[in-house]
C-alpha cells in the first residue's frame, strides 16, 4: 500500500478547473440586510406590490428564526449575515433580443464553463438539445430556445420575468411546496431572492428537450439566492438539469437557493443536479456554503418526481431534496452521489413523506469521503397514518478513502401505518486493496483503478442522469478525488 500512497500523493490536489473570475460589469447593493435592502431588490426588479409584501413577510419571519446549527453534522464559523451582499447583477441593456446583445465577456464565461450558448442556439429543434437559462450572481442573463418551447405552450424563463408575465402562476405555486416559514434559509431566500428559473409545462405536453439552468456566483462577497419553480401540469413531462460553479475565492460565499416542484396528475419531473461550487482549497480555505431547500410535491395521483444529484463542490453542503407523496400511487426517487475531499463537509440526503395510498419511494445514496472531509447522509422516510401500502427502499453506501475522513449515516424512519413496508440498508467500506491489485495486474495504474472502481460504485446514480451530464459527472468525480489516498 505504501507505494500506492506515494503514487497518489504525487498527484497533489488538482486545480479547481472552474476557478476563473469573469470581468463583467456588475451592479451591487451595499452589504447587509434590512427591510430597505429587501425593498431595493424588489424595486430593482420592478416587482408588483404582492411580491414585495411576500418578501417583507418572509424577512420579518426570518428575523425570528434560528440558524439550524444543532442537528447537522457540520462545523463552521459564525456567518455574519450583515456582511453579505444580497444583490449583484451584471449590468445589462434593458432587454436582450438575441445572444448578440449579451456581454461578450459573459459569453466567454459560458464558453469556459463548457456550454456554448451560441452552439446551443444553432442546434434548434433537435431532440437531444438542451434549453438553457443562465443565472449569474442571482440574475438570469439569457434563456435560450424560448421561442421553440413557446410553440408547445411551455413557459421557460427567468423567475423575474415570470413574476411580470405570469403572476397568476407564480402567486398560485410559489411557497406552496416550500413556505417561507419552512426553515431559516428558505425564509432568507424568500426575502432576498434575486432571480432564478421558472418553468411551466402545460397539460399533456412532453417537453421535447432537456431544460437547464447554469448557476454561477461571480462577484466577491455576494450571496446567491436563486429561486426555481417548476410546474408540470397533468400528463406533462420534463427533465430539468442544474449546474453550478463559482470562482476560487479566499472567503466563504453563501448560496441559499429554493427549488419547488409541483407535479400534477400523471405528470413526471426529473430534476438532475451537478453541483460543483468552489469547494475551498486543499487547506480548507474559502469555498461556498451551500444551504439549499429543494422540495417537490406529487400533488395528485400517479405523479412522479425524481431527484438525481452529483455533489462534488462546496465547502459545506446542507441539502435534502425531498418529495411529498400526496397523490395516490405517486412515486418519489432520490439518487445521490456526494463526494467530499480535503476539508469539505456535506450533510445531505432526502425526505420522503408518504401521505397518499400505494405511494412508493426509492433512495439510493452513495457517499465518498476522502482527505479530512466529513460526509453525512441524513434522510427521513415518513409513512403517515392512512398511507396504505406505502413502500420505501433505501440503500445508503459510504466509501472511505484514507483514514482521516468520516462517513456517517443518519436515517430517520417514522412509520404510522401498519401496511407500510420500509427497508433501509447501509454499508460502509473502503476500496478493496485486492480490487486495486486486480486492476494493476491487468495493466491499470492505481489512480485509474480508483476512478474505475468509484465510477462503478456510483453507477446506479449515474445511470439516472442524461447522457451529457453523466459524462460530465464522471469526469468531475475523477477530478474531485485526485490526490486522495487509495
Amino acid at each position, binding site marked *: 500500500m505504501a507505494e500506492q500512497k506515494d503514487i497518489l500523493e504525487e498527484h497533489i490536489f488538482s486545480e479547481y478547473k472552474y476557478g476563473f473570475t469573469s470581468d463583467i460589469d456588475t451592479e451591487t447593493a451595499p452589504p447587509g440586510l434590512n427591510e430597505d435592502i429587501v425593498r431595493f431588490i424588489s424595486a430593482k426588479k420592478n416587482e408588483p406590490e404582492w411580491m414585495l409584501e411576500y418578501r417583507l413577510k418572509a424577512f420579518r419571519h426570518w428575523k425570528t428564526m434560528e440558524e439550524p446549527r444543532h442537528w447537522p453534522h457540520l462545523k463552521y464559523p459564525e456567518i455574519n449575515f450583515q456582511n453579505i451582499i444580497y444583490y449583484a447583477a451584471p449590468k445589462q441593456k434593458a432587454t436582450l433580443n438575441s445572444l448578440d446583445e449579451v456581454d461578450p465577456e459573459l459569453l466567454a464565461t459560458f464558453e469556459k464553463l463548457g456550454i456554448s450558448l451560441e452552439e446551443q442556439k444553432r442546434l434548434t429543434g433537435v431532440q437531444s438539445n438542451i434549453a438553457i437559462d443562465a443565472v449569474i450572481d442571482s440574475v438570469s442573463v439569457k434563456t435560450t430556445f424560448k421561442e421553440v418551447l413557446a410553440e408547445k405552450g411551455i413557459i421557460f424563463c427567468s423567475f423575474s420575468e415570470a413574476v411580470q408575465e405570469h403572476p397568476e402562476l407564480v402567486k398560485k405555486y410559489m411557497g406552496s411546496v416550500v413556505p417561507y416559514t419552512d426553515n431559516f434559509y428558505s425564509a432568507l431566500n424568500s426575502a432576498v431572492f434575486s432571480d432564478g428559473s421558472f418553468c411551466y409545462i402545460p397539460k399533456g405536453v412532453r417537453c421535447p428537450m432537456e431544460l437547464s439552468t447554469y448557476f454561477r456566483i461571480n462577484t466577491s462577497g455576494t450571496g446567491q439566492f436563486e429561486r426555481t419553480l417548476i410546474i408540470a401540469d397533468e400528463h406533462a413531462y420534463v427533465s430539468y438539469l442544474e449546474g453550478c460553479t463559482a470562482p476560487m475565492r479566499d472567503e466563504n460565499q453563501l448560496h441559499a437557493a429554493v427549488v419547488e416542484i409541483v407535479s400534477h396528475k400523471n405528470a413526471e419531473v426529473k430534476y438532475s443536479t451537478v453541483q460543483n461550487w468552489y469547494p475551498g482549497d486543499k487547506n480548507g480555505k474559502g469555498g461556498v456554503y451551500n444551504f439549499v431547500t429543494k422540495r417537490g410535491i406529487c400533488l395528485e395521483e400517479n405523479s412522479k418526481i425524481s431527484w438525481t444529484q452529483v455533489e462534488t463542490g462546496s465547502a459545506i453542503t446542507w441539502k435534502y431534496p425531498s418529495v411529498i407523496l400526496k397523490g395516490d400511487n405517486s412515486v418519489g426517487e432520490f439518487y445521490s452521489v456526494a463526494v467530499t475531499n480535503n476539508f469539505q463537509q456535506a450533510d445531505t440526503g432526502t425526505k420522503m413523506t408518504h401521505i397518499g395510498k400505494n405511494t412508493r419511494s426509492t433512495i439510493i445514496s452513495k457517499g465518498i469521503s476522502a482527505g479530512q472531509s466529513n460526509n453525512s447522509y441524513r434522510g427521513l422516510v415518513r409513512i403517515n397514518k392512512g398511507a396504505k401500502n406505502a413502500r420505501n427502499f433505501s440503500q445508503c453506501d*459510504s466509501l472511505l478513502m484514507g*483514514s482521516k475522513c468520516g462517513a456517517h449515516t*443518519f*436515517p*430517520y424512519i417514522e412509520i404510522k401505518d401498519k401496511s*407500510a*413496508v420500509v427497508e*433501509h440498508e*447501509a454499508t460502509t467500506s473502503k476500496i478493496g486493496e485486492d480490487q486495486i491489485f486486480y486492476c494493476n495486474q491487468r495493466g491499470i495504474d492505481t489512480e485509474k483503478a480508483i476512478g474505475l472502481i468509484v465510477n462503478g460504485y456510483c453507477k446506479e446514480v449515474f445511470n439516472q442522469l442524461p447522457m451529457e451530464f453523466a459524462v460530465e459527472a464522471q469526469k468531475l468525480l475523477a477530478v474531485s478525488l485526485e490526490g486522495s489516498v487509495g
Partner: protein
Amino acid sequence: MTTVEKISASEKLVSDFEAVKKTLPENSFVQNIRQKAIEAFAKLGIPARKNEEYKYSNVQKLFQEDFTQSAIYNPQFTIDKYLIPNLDAHIIVLVNDFYSEELSSLENLDKTVVVSSLKKAFEKYPELVEKHFSKHADISSDAFIALNTAYAADGIFIKVPDNTVVEKPIHIINVISAKENTLFSPRNLFVIGKNAQLQIVETFASIDLTVNVISNSVTEIVVGENARVQYYRVQNENENSQHINTVSASQEKNSHFDTNTVTLSGGWVRNNLNIALNGENCETHLNGLFLANATNYVDNHTLVDHRMPHCESNQTYKGILDGKATGVFNGKIFVQRDAQKTNAYQSSKNILLSDDATINAKPQLEIYADDVKCSHGSSTGKIDEDALFYLQARGLGIESAKKLLLHAFVNDVMQTIRIEALREHLENLIHKKLD
C-alpha cells in the same frame, strides 16, 4: 408552554437537591461528584424534543407532575412470586432502591465475590468504587445520568475477582412501591475482573402502584480483560411505571459482553445502552425485543463506541407494536479513528399490528476509520401475508397462524438467551402477551 414547564421542572429538581443531599451517603468523594452532577444537570435540563437524542421521547411531559425523591415507604410482600420458575440463581433484592439483605439469598455464592449495597461499598471498598463510580456513565453526556448521579441513594455493588467464574446467574429483583409520586434513582456498579465470568438477570416489579413513579436508573458495568459477561434485563411491569434506564458498560481487551433487553410491558420505557470498547479484540452483542400495546412507549437507544481496533459488535432489535403503542429504536455505531478492522452490524426489525401504532427507527453510523466493515439494516412491515396464507391453507386458524409467525419473528432474539430457565420463562410471557 413547554419552555416554562421545562425550566420549572428542571429548576425544581436542582433546588430540591439541596435538601435531599443531606440524606445521601456522606463521603467527600461522592459529595464532590454529586455536586458536579447536579451542576451538569442544571446546565442540560430535562431535554426538549429538539434535542436529537430525545426527538421521539417526550420526557418533559413525564416531569409535569411533582415528585418526591425519597421513598420512606416499606411495602410488605413475599419475594417468591417474583422469582423465575426453575431458575437456579443467587438472588439479590432491592426494595425502593435499597439493598435488602434479608430478602436476598446468596448462600452458595463464592465468598470472594463481593455483593453489597452501593452505600456500604463507598465505605468498605472506597478505592475500587472510586476507580469506577461515575467513570463510565458520563454526567455531561446526558441529563438523566447527571440527575441519577446527583440523587442516587443506593443500589447494588458487585465485584467478581480476577479468574473467578460465577457458575450460577445472579438474579437482581427490583421492587418498588410508593404512596406518593416518586422519582427513584437506583444506581448499580458491577466490576468483573480479568478472566472472570458472570451472568446477571435483572427484573423489575412494582407493588400496589396507584401513583406516578419515575425510575431513573444508572448501571455501570466494567468488563475486565478477557472476561465474559452476560446481562439480561427483563421489563415486565404495570402500566403506571415510567422508566429511564441507562446501562453504561466498558469493555477491556479480549472481553465478551452480551446484553439482552426484553421489554414486555411498562407504561413508558426509555432504555439507554452505552457500550465502550476500550481494548482490542472485544466482542459485544446487543439484543433486544419489545412488545408494546395500549399506549405503551418503548424506546431503545444504543450506542456502541468502537475505540480500539479489531473489535466486533452485533445488534439485533425486534419490536412488535399493537394498539396505540409507540416504539423507538435509535442505534448508533461510532467508530473512532483508531478503531481499524472494526466489524459492526446493526439490525432493527419491526412489525406493526395496528393502524394506530407507530415505530420510529434511527439506525446511525458515524465512522472515522477506513478499514472497517459496518452495516445496518432496518425494516418495518406487516406480518408476511404469503406466509399467513400458506399456514391457513394448511388448516391453521388466522389467529394461531399470526401467533406462530410472530413467535418465529422474535425467535432469533430469544435464541441468544443462554439461560434456559429464563428463555422458557420469557417464551411463556410472550405467549401470554400475544394472546
